[in-house]
């Protein structure tokens, strides 16, 4: 009897072990196929123009619309910020559930030129963040975005920036939800947000 019980217990343990092992296998096996789609929680620790440090925890409970750019960019960045501003306007009473963030990938120059005045010209709700080189690189890496300084003798200060121009949507718990590719109409972004709020 005892032996049988022990055997049962052992079999049960073995069964659980097999299931657990299977689950372990299943996890890593699934991950590579979904690596670009897998939810992840990008993070940042960056100051605004006034020096107040922000991280995702400061916006817990809100959706974040995050754009990486630089204020010396007269084409791509104003277009996207205009769309973000339109989305915030059109959200009406739901606007306080969405925080738009502009993260500078040219922080030194943007701080010098004034980031808050620039973002406020599009919409007062947009918070502009500009850290030091390390904070900026860490934020970009966390969001898995690319940016690079390109030397260009004809450009102001002798350089310009290349960067990922997409808009990223982060959920109220901090998880990455999706990206809107550059040029996505404001109406499409609005419809997507409304379906989530």
């Amino acid at each position: 009897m005892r032996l049988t019980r022990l055997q049962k217990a052992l079999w049960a343990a073995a069964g659980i072990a097999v299931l657990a092992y299977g689950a372990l296998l299943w996890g890593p096996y699934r991950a590579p196929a979904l690596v670009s789609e897998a939810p992840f929680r990008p993070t940042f620790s960056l100051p605004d123009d006034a020096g107040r440090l922000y991280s995702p925890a400061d916006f817990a409970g809100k959706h974040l619309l995050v754009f990486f750019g630089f204020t010396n960019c007269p084409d791509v960045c104003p277009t996207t910020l205009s769309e973000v501003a339109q989305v915030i306007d059109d959200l009406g009473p739901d606007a306080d559930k969405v925080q738009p963030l502009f993260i500078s990938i040219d922080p030194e120059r943007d701080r010098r030129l004034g980031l808050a005045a620039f973002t406020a010209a599009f919409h007062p709700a947009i918070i502009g963040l500009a850290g030091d080189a390390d904070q900026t690189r860490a934020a970009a890496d966390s969001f898995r975005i690319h940016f690079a300084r390109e030397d260009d003798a004809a450009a102001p200060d002798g350089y310009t920036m290349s960067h990922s121009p997409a808009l990223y949507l982060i959920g109220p718990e901090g998880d990455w939800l999706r990206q809107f590719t550059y040029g996505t109409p404001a109406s499409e972004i609005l419809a997507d947000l409304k379906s989530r709020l």
Partner: protein
Amino acid sequence: MKSVALFAALTLTAPAAFACEPFAVGDLTIEHAWSRATIGADRPGVFYVEITNAGSADDALVGIATPAAGMPMLHETVVTDGIASMPHSMSVPVPAGQTVALAPGGYHGMLMGLVTALKEGGSFPVTLTFQRAGEVTVTVDVLSMRAEGPDCAHAGQ
């Protein structure tokens, strides 16, 4: 041609913005020239326009000049492998029978070295140089920073 002249006459009598007034040189019609307001003069301004080539020969926009900026250049925003950059363009092709737009996210005039801030509601001249048609000076409307283009249908009514 007749309809262009009529359109021009209508827009001149209406309180239309300059951006809605077409300019012509040779076979080319140039309209919807606009820019975005800037905060101060330290950041580059932008120049957008539409060019229609009604002729049978290809042309190209090879340069822009303006008293509003020390170094105006033609640029093209390109997104390659998810990265946006804006290399210089030596010229913008204006093929026969086609309309080409300098528009957000594509070709644009990059107005570096602004002489003064571009104020919403203001305007400034830009001279365009074409390979075949030669030079033409157009008036550029400064729209709000949030503008995505001039609202000409409305202005012409």
